[in-house]
Structure formats: structure tokens, C-alpha cells
């Protein structure tokens, strides 16, 4: 069962790299979509920012994806930056699992 969620990924490309802004819920059904979006980026992209500031929910599948990205970035030598979710519903799992401090998270700029 694919559960439709208000899920959206917006790409922004700058000289500094690519930013993917993820809106909605990152879970079982949507995490693979984000995974594919990042997988589809050009190999010469040297910096990827995943902006999760507008994320409203994240489950363990989403979390696992972020950890995988972090591992890949280290192995393939590109820069990964993550923007913290503003919503506690998404941020809670990051804090509970230690991902918040172990992964390259930055605060979202004030809206």
C-alpha cells in the first residue's frame, strides 16, 4: 500500500552545490523517493544539502536513509549538509537516536 503523503522535493542548484528541500513526511513510502533523487544527482556534484526544515514527520526508514547518505558522502568524498527539521514531530526521532549530533546537521535559518 503506497500511502499518499504531502511529499515534495524541490531542487535548487547553485555554484556551491545542490540543495534538496524536502517537504512533508519522510517515511516508508517517501524515503525511497528522496534516495532516488539523490542517487540521480550528477556524479560531479560535490556538495549536497538536504533541507529538512519543513519536514513534518520522519520514521526509521528516513533516518536510515540519512545515515546511508552520511556514509556515502564520506566514502565518495562529497560534502553533505543537513538542515534540522523545525517540527518536533520530525526532530524527535533524530534526537532520540543520536543522529542529531552525529550527522552533519545545521539549524534552519530563521524563517
Amino acid at each position, binding site marked *: 500500500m503506497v500511502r499518499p503523503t504531502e511529499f515534495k522535493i524541490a531542487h535548487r542548484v547553485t555554484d556551491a552545490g545542490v540543495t534538496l528541500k524536502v517537504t512533508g513526511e519522510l517515511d*516508508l513510502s517517501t524515503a525511497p523517493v528522496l534516495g532516488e533523487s539523490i542517487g540521480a544527482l550528477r556524479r560531479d556534484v560535490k556538495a549536497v544539502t538536504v533541507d529538512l526544515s519543513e519536514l513534518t514527520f520522519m520514521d526509521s526508514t528516513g533516518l536510515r536513509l540519512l545515515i546511508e547518505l552520511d556514509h556515502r558522502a564520506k566514502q565518495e568524498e562529497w560534502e553533505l549538509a543537513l538542515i534540522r527539521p523545525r517540527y518536533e514531530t520530525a526532530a524527535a526521532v533524530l534526537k532520540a537516536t543520536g543522529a542529531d549530533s552525529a550527522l552533519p546537521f545545521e539549524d534552519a535559518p530563521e524563517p
Partner: protein
Amino acid sequence: MGGMASIQAEFILDRAYSAVVSMDEEGLVTAWNPSAEATFGFKREAALGRPVAELIVPERLRAAHREGLRRFLATGEGRVLDRRLEMQALRADGTEIPIEFTISALRTADTWSFFAFIRDVSERVEADRERERLVEELHVALRGSERRFEAIVGSLGDAITIRDREHRFLYANPAAVAHLGFGSWEELRDTSPDTIMQEFTVSDEHGQEIRMEDIPSVRILRGEEAEPLLIRTVNRVSGVQRWNLLKAAPLLDEDGQVEATITIIEDVTEPKRAEQRGAFLAQASAVLASSLDYEQTLRNVAQLAVPEVADWCAVDLVDDDGDRNSVAVAHVDPARLSLAEELRAYEPDRLDPDQGLGLVFRTGESLLYPEIPESLLVDAAVDERHLELIRAVGLRSGLVVPMKLGKRTLGALTLVSSESGRTLDQSDVELAEQVAARAAVAIENSRLYSQRSSIARTLQQSLLPDRLPEIPGYEIASVYLPAMEGSLVGGDFYDVWPLGDEWMVIIGDVTGKGVEAAALTALVRHTMRTASEFLPSPADLLAQVDRTLKHRPALSVCTALCLRLRDDQVTLAVGGHPLPLYLTGGQVTKLGEHGPLLGAFTEAAWHDVTVELEPGSTLVAYTDGITDAVDKGHGRFGLERLYDALRDARGPQAAKVVECLTGALAEFQSGANADDTAAIVLHRLARAEARENSAARRENGRPTDDLLAGARHGQTD
């Protein structure tokens, strides 16, 4: 001429604009004014006394001139007198000029004088000629531009029509004549617009019927703005479908009124079909990839082709014996599906290998029936009812394409056009083949996947303890709700085993996929069981698992909650897992502190927390499958509902808490759960409960000590 009158006459004659020439009965010139001099080039002196006939009458007319004069003098009959006449006159230089003149006869004494008042009309005649020439030239030019118009408009691929206010065709270029299905312009011109409209079913992009009043040219006649209109026409007779873009403009008369409308009918069938195909195939790929469920995939395949490609779509698979296995049917109008069901009953189990589906299965080649003749239906029918059913379906045109994977034919898609009345053509075959190719891959994927996922599922579930051991002073219950079939998520696990007079309780969640996740679960459990023999601290146990996971070549991550139970004390450590909930006196609180996920981060540390469990209290350890569960409105079950469910439990007993929890969850998510869901509940017996329990056991003849020994034995061998 003399006296006063003569002077006056001379004065007038000298200044008259017209040439005035008079002659006597002999035809000799008696007067010749200056205008006459100018007109004919003879001086007065040279003209006087000479015969008029010789001076100004061209030779060919002189006989008639003389005869006229003679007849008048003889009979008094003057045909030419006092009338405005035109003739050619001679000039001194021998050239002729056109003149306009009147002749009057005057009788004085007993002799006749004749006066001619003459005007040179060369200029006027020349002007007339020029005008005629211009008109002729204009005609030539117009005929030329008409030819050019015909050459340009006639050769355009786009159909162009001009219609009058009554929608009658005033003009149609050859493309339009052909487009509207006519052999000649005359044939089209003599056919009423309504008759032409009736030959087609006309709809817009969304399948909505287009009526005469929606046509741009008709809207323009109503004085409305008319945007270009995209229409789909299906010829009722031939079934040929076309896409047209209608663009209309008004032709205005001198008063600015719409006199007629010009319509350009752009045939966009090819680009429209290409666009539809692109969109359709993209959608097809997405739909086919959206489910790994075998049955659902096949239903999706059937639904896909309707109504984009045809009105009916059936999916058949070939089984190992080469027989058909009908798996899905879709129809534009779901109400008519029963018809298909009834039809299916007539189909033979054995297919004829030389026609239809059987032929496609055998050869792996597509078949196209652009027209399905009545004779074919009659031949195919088994009995009257069968023929009736076939006719009711209204088969118009059909095609069968194989779903192939390499050289292997997995099945076939049958597409039939009926209601829409359109005929299927080679390009539909090509489109269907592309859908079939994608469908074949999706079918094979889901087939493989369902095999693989059931292997993984079996493996995963085999890792859960068959039966929980009994812990003295505690009541223990667990629940495990596997994720629905087809889900790719890995497994939740839990385990309970004794360590001397203490007990280990673990619960965790491996977020991998399939068999890999099952293998990982086995590794985690094995590591914990082994390490627990020499590492008394749950935090140290988690650290050991973390190290083990990090040694694996592939990223291996799991959450785990580890509890060590000793009498009424519990020591716990948490690795990326939801904190256990503690239920006592109607209050729910969290126990322990969050620690990092296992196998995920380079620097990680875990801490033990020890708490005392009050008699009558209950501890609930669960996986996020519970809190992350979703309902139809996409809400999450969440922690609040979990708290409420625990508070609402009819008693603190483990079994009752589990029952209440699963009840609340089932009510909430109204369907299968997307993720694995597990919980393990420990209820510390109050003194009274403990006594009841042991009494019950003794009655059953199963002393507690024996049971414990058995459990211990069962878990460690």
C-alpha cells in the same frame, strides 16, 4: 452671312470650344472655325471651298456621306441630322481621330446649309480604352491571385474552410475536402453542415462531447471570442480517430459585420498521439512500479490501458502447461465488467494455437484485428447466448500483444475497442507492445519479490521465540504484527532469556530489506545472547552489538532496547529505540534515556539506568511500528494515543495490556500495517496476584521450578 448677325455668328464660332464646320448643298466647306483648325489640322483658308468629304471623311465612309447628302436634297430625309453621332474623322496628317458630332440643316432662301458641331473625343475614348484595359488587367491579376490563393491554400497540408453565416461551405481546400471525408469540393458543398457533423463523434481532450455551438467558427458568428479548440473526432463509419486544432477568424464585410468565417483545421493527430503516448507510458511505468504485489500489479496493468488505448483490456498469463490463466479485466464502464465475467465462462481451457491468444502465446507475435467482422463473431460463438454476449460487447476492433521477457512469453494483453467506435491501428499495437514490455518486467519483479519476501518473512518470523519463558514474579506477553505482504521493510525482533537468576529482555528493529534484514536480526540476537553471558551491563551489551555491526562491510543499523531484570529491579539501556513506558497507578511515564542507534555512528556511548518496578506496575517495550502507524487520513497513531490506550487498559495484566494495545491500533489503522509492529509487556505481579498464579500452576500440576528449568533449557541449547 453678313450684317450684325454675321458678326455675332463669327464671334461665337471663333470662340466655340467645338469645331464648327458648315457646308453647302455641293458638300463644299463654307465655314471652318479655329477649333476645327485645331481638330483637323487644316487652316481655314485651306479648308474653305473644298469638299468636306475629302477633308475629313475617311475614304471608306465618303460614298455613304455623299449618298446621305444626295438623299436629303432629293427627299428631305436626313437620318443623321440633329443626333449625336460618333465616327472616325480624318486629319490633315492622314491620321484618324474619334469624333462626336451633330449635324443640323438650315434652309436659307432656297438653298440648304449644313452645320456640324464636332468634338474630338480621342481623350475620352482613350480613357475608356484605358479603363477597359485596366479592368482586363485587373481581371487577369485577379485570376492570377485566385490561382495564387488556390496555389497557396490548396497546397497547404492544413485543412482550410470558409463558411457563410449559415455554416455552409463557401470554400474548402483539397486538404479540407479530404479531411471531411469527401471525394470532391462539389460533393462537400452540396452536403449540409449538420449531416457532416453527424458523421463524427466529436469530443474534447477530456472526452466531453463537443456540440456545434462549441465550434470556434460558430462562436465567432455569435460574436464571441474563440480560442483555438482541440477536438478529437472519430468517424462513425470508418472508426478513424483524429485530433484537430480548430482556429477560426472572422471575415468582415464593408460594414464590419461578420460575413463568413475562416477555419484552419490543423491535424495534430501525430503530435497529440506522441504526447499522449509519452504521458501514458510515463504513467504506466509509475503505476507498474508502485506495487510489488503480484495481483495488484496485474490489475494495474489492465486498468492502465483503459480508456487511453481501448475500451476493454484483459490480462492473461500463460501457466507452465501453456494454458491461459485469466487474471484481470478492465473496462471503461465498470458496470459492464459482469459481461466480461460471463463471457469468460465460455472460453475453452485449451486455446486454439492457431488463432487469437493461443497464436500469440505460441509465436510471441502481436495480432491486430483492425475490423472485427460479424462472420468472425459467429464463428467464435459456441451457442446463441455466447453470440448474444459477444454482440453485446460490441467488438469493433482488437489487438493482442504478448508480455515478453526476453524470449519468454509471460502472458498477453488483449485490447478491444467497442463503445468508442474507434478502430485500432498499427500505432496502437506499438503502444500496447511498450506497455506490455513494461508490464512483463513489473510482473516478473512482483513474482520474484513475492517469492523473496515470503522467504525473508519466514526467516524473520522464525527468529522470534515460539513461546516466551515465564519469569517468576512477572507476567509477560508479547505481540508481533508483521508488515503486510509486499512491504520491503525489515523486521522487528524481541527475545527473552535467563541469565542465572536474572532475565534479559530485548526488543529492536532492523531497518534493512528482505533476507539481509533477517540475517542482521539473527546476528544481533546471537551477539546479544552470547555477550550477555559475560557483559552484565545492558549499555556494554549495546556497545558490543554496535562494534559487531560496524565490522560488517555493508551499513548495518538497528535499534535496540535492552532490559536486565533482577527481582523488582530493571537496568536498561536504549540504542536509538523508543523509550519503554511504565504504567503504574493509572500514570504512564517513560523509562531510561535515549542513546544512539547501533551500527550507525563513529562515536557513540550508552548509559545504564536502573529503576525499581513497583508491584502491580507494567512495563511496555514497543517498536515504532505502533507510534508510526497511519490511518486513512494519514494521521499517525503517535505517543498520545499509545498513552491513552495504556491508561484505558482494563487491567495492568500483560495480556490485557497487549489486547488493549492491538485493539486500539486495529481500530486506528483500519487495515494492514505498513511496518512491522512489536511490543513486549512485563507486568510485575502484586503479592496477591503472585499467590493466585502459583496456586493456578500447582492445580495444573506444573510446578514453577520445573517450568523455569524447562524454559532455561529450551532457550540455551
